[in-house]
Each structure stands twice: as structure tokens, then as C-alpha cells.
């Protein structure tokens, strides 16, 4: 008898609790678009923040909510992922050209003489807050590896022989974490280019030519030769520094040949046949050696 009472009581309590729970669940129900889960599934799940949202979930919510997908992009997943997302959401999306991080400083130990020693806390942002760096160039790489620390994809590492960071282009997802981490704004996201070929000015020194040259042998001195030789108007000089617009650049490599300091780098090009004068050729060869040494394809 007692056992029966116990069972009935418990069952009753259980049923009442279930009813209450059901009603409460109905009342406080939060509707979430099931597509968010689907989209999140399609995203890489790296939670790197490269898209500008706090993790992939945030991105998924934004994607589902967005009318127009063209402003949103997952740099890690790239076009494939975005196409998949567009398919889930039933929307159209245009493919974007893949990007890659480039390090715009080539002042290795040889080219850029060290003028003093730093023994403070070993992060770039700290060193940058204290002084202009251990060389006479106060724009160049500090070499303490904040970018390496920031990278989630093992795509950037410190080359101990040059003291400069090197990007591994296969791993780089162009999430922009290193760009953000660098207190000197040396790292830039640029178009990966056809066959991974690209040209860029590997210097951010805004000092006048003589000062820049004294500080670093491979500095851009703002001489303007590249600007003149460029047939596509891709090169602009501002604050004694050349900048190549990757949207306009047709990769003709004329600027590389005329640069007197070898500050303009070409990446992944086959060896060019001799078109320049002998002395210029020598310079090009020298530059090439340099680039091969420090190229991002290590």
C-alpha cells in the first residue's frame, strides 16, 4: 500500500513539474533562426575574429541577418566557405580575390645597424611606447614578435638570422590579427596575386632620403623613380615613401628594376631575362638574392 502511495505521489509531482516546465518553456521561448546553426557549421570555427565579429557564431548571426552579403567576408574560409554560406542562405555572392599578409620591412641585422640595446619587457607594443627602436629607423620592425604571438594559424614566424618576421603564404588566412598587433603598422594585407605573384614596397620609413638611407640600406628614400616609370599610375609617393596600389599594379616589374635601394620586392616571379643595363642588372641580382633570402616563401 505504502509503495503505491509513494509511486502515485512521485508521478503526480513529476507530471505537475513537467506541465509547469512546458508552460514556462513556451512562455519564455527564444526564437533563433535555425539557419544560424547551419551557417556556423559551414564556417571554419577558428574563432579568430578576422571577420570583425567575436567568433564564428557572431559572424553566423550577422550573415543570417544581413540583406547583402558583399560586406561580410570570412578571410579564413575564403571564397569556398562564402559560397557555401550563400547557398545555405539562398543568396548570391561574388568571389573575392584572396589576400595575404606581407611584411613591409627588410631591415635585417646587416642592412640596419643596431644603435642601442633594449632590455625591457619583450613585446613590440611595449618597446614602441618607450622609444624609437634599437636602430636609427623609428618606423621599422622592432623584432620582438607581437605578430607571431597574435597569429592563430602558425602563418608567421621570426627569422632569427634576420630578426624579421616571415609570412608563410600557405598558412596565412589574411585574418588581419598580425596587422592589428603590429604597433608600427608594418604588416599589410595585399592581394595574393595571380600565381601568388606580387610586388610591394618593403619599407615604411617616412624620413627624408638621406636620413632613411643612413638608418637602413634598403629603405625607401622617396626618390620617385618608381612613380615615374610606372605606366599604370599604381605608385604614389607620400611622406617620402612609395606605395604600390595592388588594385592598379599590373606586375610589370619596371619599378623593381629602377629602385636604387632595392626597397621594392617581387615575390614568386621566375627569373627575368636581362632587359636592364648591366649595372642595373647587377643591382637587380643583388636585390633578388636579398629577396630570396628573406622571401615569404621560406
Amino acid at each position: 500500500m505504502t509503495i503505491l502511495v509513494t509511486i502515485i505521489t512521485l508521478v503526480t509531482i513529476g507530471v505537475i513539474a513537467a506541465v509547469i516546465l512546458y508552460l514556462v518553456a513556451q512562455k519564455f521561448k527564444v526564437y533563433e533562426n535555425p539557419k544560424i546553426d547551419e551557417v556556423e557549421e559551414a564556417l571554419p570555427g577558428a574563432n579568430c575574429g578576422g571577420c570583425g565579429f567575436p567568433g564564428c557564431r557572431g559572424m553566423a548571426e550577422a550573415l543570417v541577418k544581413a540583406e547583402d552579403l558583399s560586406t561580410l567576408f570570412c578571410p579564413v574560409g575564403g571564397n569556398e566557405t562564402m559560397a557555401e554560406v550563400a547557398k545555405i542562405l539562398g543568396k548570391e555572392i561574388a568571389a573575392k580575390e584572396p589576400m595575404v599578409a606581407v611584411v613591409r620591412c627588410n631591415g635585417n641585422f646587416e642592412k640596419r645597424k643596431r644603435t642601442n640595446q633594449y632590455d625591457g619587457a619583450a613585446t613590440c607594443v611595449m618597446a614602441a611606447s618607450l622609444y624609437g627602436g634599437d636602430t636609427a629607423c623609428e618606423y621599422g620592425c622592432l623584432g620582438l614578435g607581437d605578430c607571431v604571438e597574435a597569429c592563430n594559424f602558425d602563418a608567421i614566424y621570426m627569422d632569427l638570422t634576420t630578426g624579421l618576421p616571415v609570412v608563410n603564404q600557405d598558412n596565412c588566412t589574411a585574418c588581419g590579427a598580425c596587422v592589428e598587433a603590429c604597433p608600427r603598422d608594418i604588416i599589410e594585407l595585399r592581394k595574393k596575386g595571380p600565381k601568388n605573384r606580387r610586388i610591394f614596397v618593403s619599407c615604411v620609413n617616412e624620413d627624408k632620403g638621406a636620413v632613411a638611407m643612413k638608418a637602413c640600406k634598403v629603405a625607401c628614400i622617396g626618390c620617385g623613380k618608381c612613380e615615374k616609370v610606372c605606366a599604370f599610375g599604381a605608385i604614389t609617393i607620400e611622406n617620402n615613401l612609395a606605395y604600390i596600389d595592388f588594385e592598379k599594379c599590373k606586375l610589370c616589374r619596371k619599378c623593381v628594376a629602377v629602385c636604387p635601394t632595392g626597397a621594392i620586392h617581387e615575390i614568386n616571379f621566375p627569373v627575368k631575362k636581362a632587359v636592364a643595363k648591366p649595372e642595373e642588372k647587377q643591382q637587380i641580382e643583388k636585390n633578388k638574392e636579398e629577396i630570396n633570402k628573406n622571401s615569404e616563401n621560406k
Partner: protein
Amino acid sequence: MLKTFSKGGVHPAANKLSADKAIEILPLPKTVTIPISQHIGAPAKVLVKKGDSVKVGQKIAESGGFVSANIHSSVSGTVSKIDNIVDASGYKKPCVIINVEGDEWDENIDKSKELKKDFDLSAEEIIKKISDAGIVGLGGATFPSHVKLSIPKGKKAEVLILNGVECEPYLTADHRLMLEKAEEILVGTKILMKALNVDKAFIGIENNKPDAINHFNKLVENYEGIKVVPLKVKYPQGGEKQLIKAVINREVPSGGLPIAVGAVVHNVGTAFAVYEAIQKNKPLFERVVTVTGKSVTKPANFLVRIGTSTAELINAAGGLPEDTGKIVSGGPMMGKAIVNTDVPITKGSSGVLLFKDKESKRQESQNCIRCGKCVSVCPMGLEPYLLMNLVENKMWDELEKNHVLDCIECGSCMFTCPSQRPLLDYIRLGKSTVNKIIRSRKK
């Protein structure tokens, strides 16, 4: 029982090697490099151009806003160029470079040495003249003095405190100035009292300078309302907030200025500069700088024209010792290592310190052992270990909640840390980041 501040504090070895060395006038250099940003606030605007000839005391750059200061030429000669030169901040800043030719002073400056006690100016006139003379806080913070003297509406200054503490080890510039120019400092104090409309002034001096205390005690009898307050030797006694707590036992609220408790603090060096500006019409273009270090052959206190290169001072003090590892501008606790000896002396340079190689090496940072020493020595009652942790993890909101902006950057935490953790470096980074966030929020 001597007065002092209540929370924290450390006792670094005093090492006042140059305390008994009288102030020497440094011979004129061949060129001077005068940075146009020697103060907190907006940089000054250059008034001269290449080829202009200037006189000593001529204004060469004009204050670039309310919180800014005029810059005057410290030498006579020709402006050779205006260029970017690395200053004590470690970065290239615009500087006016002047080739020295003779020593021709502006005719308004009274070059006589006699003490001139009487002055007949209103508070506004005094502040105007101090502003014109480009006077900034000479204790090291270089905050423009006229801003400190212009009391905001609704507030009232009750007391002036003169900072003669010089709690930084090694430095003796203020000490010597107090011994040699005491009367001038007292007249300067009187002028400052008039400008602030207060009738009470205290001169806080640490007890390790008994000669200065005695000297002032004898002299203040002739100056109504000024009192000498001997203070216990403890770093950072010379911090503005610490000094107020020690002298008048009032605590400046978090985020507030000393005026919130009715106090205004000025350095003794500033008082001397004020005396010279008002009574002798002399703008601020020279200051006393201590050159010292354990290996320095002739530690000394020099009266230096602003813009003289550090190298000149080191040579005058017997040359650069071979075992020098670091050259620090300022004191050993708060000073900053400079990158080369061409760095010019500015209004804020109180000392040039040559550390031996061994002394200057930083020990490797170890893990925090949770000993709590940094917390117990922090004069602002902060938790340095926590702040450093938060900066490492980029938790800026938490940092703000933990009053990171109250840090006075005295370095006591780092000095005392048995694990040699770079606490202050991180906290400073946190401070600047939080400041940036607050500024962007206001926009």
C-alpha cells in the same frame, strides 16, 4: 615623529654623490638643440626660420594652446636648421638647432645677481608673466605652471606646497638650489602665493637634507606665512599626492587634482624660475642638472642652458666612464634611458645618470610568487600584480575599474618585486590604452 604619507613607499639607497658639489655654470656649447615640445600638452609653434639670428631669452616658439608653453632661445647665434632630432622620449621630435655666437642677452633681462624682494603685480599679471616666460614644472613632469596657477571656477586654493623633497636617489639639483638660492626661492614662493591668493605656504623637505632645512628655517622668519616641514625619508615622498597627504594630511580623491583639496604644489626649482621671470624678466632657458653615477669621476651639479647635448655634461663631469651600461635622463626610479648622448637637455631634465654595466642590466623576469610586496609598497593603494595581469590579458575595462589611471608611475612595485617582473612597463601600457579608450568614448 616626522610627517610622511600613509600608504606604501620604499627606501632605495640614497646615493646622493653630488650633494656637496656647488652648482657650476657649464661653459656655453657650440650648438644647442632646442625641442619645441618640452612640456605636457600641445607642442609649441616655431617662430624662427633657418638663418635667423636670435638672442638669449628670445622667444623662438609660441605656446600652441592653453596647456602648452613658450620656448625661448637659450643662447645667442644663428638658427642653423629646424630638424627632427631624437629627444629623451626616444623618438624624433622637431627641434630648433642654433649655432652659438657670443652670449648676447635680450636687453629686457636683468643680469644682476642682487636679490630683489619687492614686487607689485596683480595675480593676473603674475600668471601672464609666468606664462610668457614659458615656465613649466621643473620637478620632471613639465606641466605648464600657468595652468596650475589658474584655479578653475568654483574652486579655491587654500595652501601652496613647495616641493623640495627630491626623493629620487642620486639627484641633488633641487638640494643645491635650495642651499644656494634659498632667498630667491622664498621670494618666488611669495609671488606664487600672491598669484594663488593664499596666505599659507609649506616647504616640504626630506629629512636627509638637514642643511637645507636649517637654512630655510633661519630665513623663513622674514617671510610671513611660509613654514618649513621636514619629512620622513621615503620614496615617493615627492609625488604630488603623497606630498599633500604628508604635509596637510588631505587625500586627493581618485582621478582628482590637488585643487580638489585646496592645495597647489610647485617644485622649488619652479619657484626659483618664477622669481627670475618676475623680478629679473628672465624666461626659462636654463636649469640645474645633476650629472652623477658611481663611476663618474666628478659628479656635479651644472647650471645648463636648455638644448645643450647630454655629451657636453658628461664631458664636463670627467667624461664617459668605460663601464657605462645605460645613460638615464632623470632619476633612477622614474627616469628614462636615452638612446644616445646627443639627446638635448630640456626643461624637464633633472639629472643625467650614468649607470654601470652591471647595475643597469635587467634581471630576467620570473613568475609572480604572490608575495604581495607590490601591493604593500604602492603609494596609491593599487594592486600592481593584478594590473599587470589584466594588461597581459588585454582586459581594458577591468583595468579601468581597478583604477589604473591613479598610478603615478613611481616604480616602487618594480623596485620591490623579488621576481623582477616588469610591472610598471605593463601598467604604463595599460594606462595609455585606457586613456585612449576613454578619449574615443568621449568623441
